[in-house]
């Protein structure tokens, strides 16, 4: 009882402190849901949430107004599966925490959770956010075990605990990763099968610690397993495994997913892909093609985008644009960039509609075109200052100065 009261009081305090109202007028609003586009939209934001969307709404007195001038406004975008916030400089190993190798146990570690290492003060967070991104899938990357570890959705709002949604477990089953299990990807399936056996009936060969069992059980019951696979036949194995163990799978990579699109649609398994992948980069991906996203979408498969980039996670917008250029309907691509990942990974609803948190972006033009940039990002209903380490470096060197640049320090 006492607990409940405290929670309510805290909630009230938060609401008052964060109360900052904002109105965006004359927007071409991409809602990210089935509504698609609302022309001439006025968006009234109160206490961080979208209160009203409509035409020619009365603007409350004294509230900050952003005139979109008919430019597009979208829900803030999804940056894909990324290790932004887990890595500062890729080649500086002490600043990189997204995977582990040569750990001093021989177990699998589904309990390895990269969220424990997430740094919201990383320069990458702002650098990504000001390009129009509000959330990402924080990812455990491939180490030397079949199970890479777990992560989940993270809001790029600079909070220490900005996680939401279900646990996502990452499993790398590519031909490359097979070297870690003796050379054959079949060994991955063998070990994964044994790990799941341990959940159900215990086993003599222990692959999981007690904590690991709990973690894997939680994922199996109400989490997502993200399988990093590209080859069509490997995707078919994922479909079988997901069915056999009643787990929700997501394909990450999926270069040949279009070949088995119908089976994926039937199994309701989404694909998170890089829409620029069109080369036979290895023997897992001979079928790579630019219209992978379009073909999957047409077959009824849920598509999301991921660039595989860390520092350049913002590039995922270019992927979506190229998917549209190669046949994916724009509305589907906008959904894939906004509401779909939140829905799949169990995060909060992210459409631009009344009652939702106001994470929005005003674009200088077509939101999926490389010719446009994010003009103003709004996070939790507040205009972002649009400053990052990179904009500060830019500003320092934009203007010529009589003093050394080191004296050019922003206020």
């Amino acid at each position, binding site marked *: 009882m006492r607990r409940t009261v405290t929670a309510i009081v805290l909630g009230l305090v938060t609401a008052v402190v964060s109360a900052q109202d904002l109105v965006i007028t004359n927007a071409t609003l991409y809602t990210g849901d089935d509504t698609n586009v609302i022309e001439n939209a006025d968006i009234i934001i109160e206490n961080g949430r979208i209160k009203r969307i409509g035409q020619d709404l009365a603007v409350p007195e004294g509230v900050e107004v952003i005139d979109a001038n008919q430019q597009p406004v979208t829900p803030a975008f999804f940056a894909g599966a990324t290790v932004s916030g887990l890595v500062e400089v*890729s080649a500086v190993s002490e600043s990189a925490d997204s995977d582990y190798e040569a750990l001093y146990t021989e177990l699998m570690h589904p309990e390895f959770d990269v969220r424990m290492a997430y740094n919201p003060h990383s320069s990458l967070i702002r650098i990504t956010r000001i390009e129009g991104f509000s959330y990402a899938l924080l990812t455990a990357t491939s180490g030397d075990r079949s199970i890479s570890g777990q992560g989940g959705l993270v809001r790029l709002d600079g909070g220490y605990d900005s996680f939401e949604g279900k646990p996502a477990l990452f499993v790398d089953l590519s031909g490359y990763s097979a070297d870690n299990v003796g050379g054959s990807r079949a060994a991955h399936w063998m070990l994964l099968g044994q790990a799941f056996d341990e959940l159900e009936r215990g086993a003599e060969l222990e692959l999981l610690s007690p904590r690991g069992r709990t973690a894997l059980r939680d994922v199996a019951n109400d989490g997502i397993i993200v399988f990093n696979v590209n080859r069509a036949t490997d995707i078919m194995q994922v479909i079988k495994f997901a069915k056999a163990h009643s787990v929700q799978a997501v394909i990450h990579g999926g270069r040949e997913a279009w070949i088995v699109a119908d089976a994926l649609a039937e199994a309701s398994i989404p694909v998170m892909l890089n829409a*620029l992948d069109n*080369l036979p980069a290895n023997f897992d991906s001979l079928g790579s093609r630019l219209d992978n996203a379009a073909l999957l979408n047409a077959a009824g498969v849920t598509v999301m985008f991921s660039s595989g980039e860390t*520092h350049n996670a*913002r590039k995922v917008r*270019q992927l979506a*644009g190229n998917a549209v250029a190669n046949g994916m309907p724009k509305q589907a691509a906008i959904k894939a960039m906004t509401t779909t990942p939140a829905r799949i990974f169990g995060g909060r609803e992210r459409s631009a509609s009344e009652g939702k948190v106001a994470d929005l972006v005003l674009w200088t033009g077509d939101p999926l*075109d*490389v010719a446009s940039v994010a003009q103003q990002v709004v996070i939790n209903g507040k205009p972002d200052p649009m400053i990052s380490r990179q904009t500060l470096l830019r500003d320092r060197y*934009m203007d010529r100065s009589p003093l050394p640049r080191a004296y050019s320090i922003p206020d």
Partner: protein
Amino acid sequence: MRGVTTLISLAMAASAAIAEPFPSTYKPLPSNPTVFTGATILTGDGNRIDGGNLLVANGIIGWVGTGEIPDNALMIDASGKWITPGIIDVHSHLGVYPSPDVRAHSDGNEATAPVTAEVWAEHSVWPQDPGFTRALAGGITTLQILPGSANLFGGRGVTLKNVPATTYQAMKFPGAPHGLKMACGENPKRVYGSRSKAPSTRMGNVAAYRTAWIKAQNYIDEWAAFEASEKDDKKPPKRDLELETLAGALKGEILVHMHCYRADEMMTVLDMAEEFGYRVGTFHHGVEAYKIADELAANGVCGALWADWWGFKMEAYDGIQENIALVDRPEGSCSIVHSDSDEGIQRLNQEAAKAMAKGNAAGLSITPEHAIRWITANAAKSLGIDDKTGTLSAGKMADIVIWNQNPFSVYAKADQVYVDGALIFDRGNKAMQPVTDFELGQLLEVSP
């Protein structure tokens, strides 16, 4: 008489040192005189012509704007389309790090010694790399294949016409000078330092470059002494492949392409070039080039840069998306968008579009007719082929791209690509979309 002897000796020396082995066997594909009408033409030299016409005949550009139409010319209505020079990538590893990316194909870095000026990238090029065909679909007509950056002197680069061929010789751009790939910074010192060999530091890098240049100077002197000698029994110095390349760079016959990220290191390299009397043609990657944009322009050095790569290593930590636009800003600059990527090379127009958008958002006024230079004329200058390609002007090679719309957009596609006046890619005609041997017959059971 003596003068004549000297001339002959010089010619012999030249043939020993710099005559072109592995010569180009490139021949343009057959072509028809063609007039494109009603297009938006970005000429590559800063001009834009709306509703413009263009004649291609005998493999070269006949005229741009208006001119006489040959009787047998094919007339192509290009209204609504945009025409640009063929796109040029000055930094590619296609063929030397091809797809599929398997160890057996990893032929781009002779990472066994820090100075390997003797290796030539062309000897690693696998012409069946499917990357060439994908780049073609993105409008790439010319590209320089470079060795990697493990070494201080990585070896010679080669400039290719992006035409399907069974040998690299049949792709070799006729008359293009070789490049010399050099590398600053982290890569060489990491590769050799981790083996407890020199160089393991940046000062070690510079000491090793200078030592090599001194050897090359001596080599030049030996040949000069031989040429000047009037003795009947004079013997030529022993040929040295490494020093031939370095001497060629010192003499300006081979263009220096220097992989370098940090501003301070680039300035060190420019001082070193001053010391040994050679020119740095182009800094590649240069993520901090914006910090010395004025100095680069003043020295006439090109900057071949990425639109948005940064942070993957310490020397890339200060990368900004306005780099290309800021390096472009001073008078006399030479800003280039390069790929260093089998993905980026397919859409260098999009990379340029990103750089233009960021420059304009920062308050610069960059037009498409200006920005197209970053992937055409400036790139041609970097490769020493600007007298042959890179702009749409009468007499130049008819390397052109017909775009379905303004190329500075994610939605733009190269509809047709012409090299030396010959159609070599046509988005609307499967028969004109080359397929490499490697890809032929794969996934036969899969219906597309």
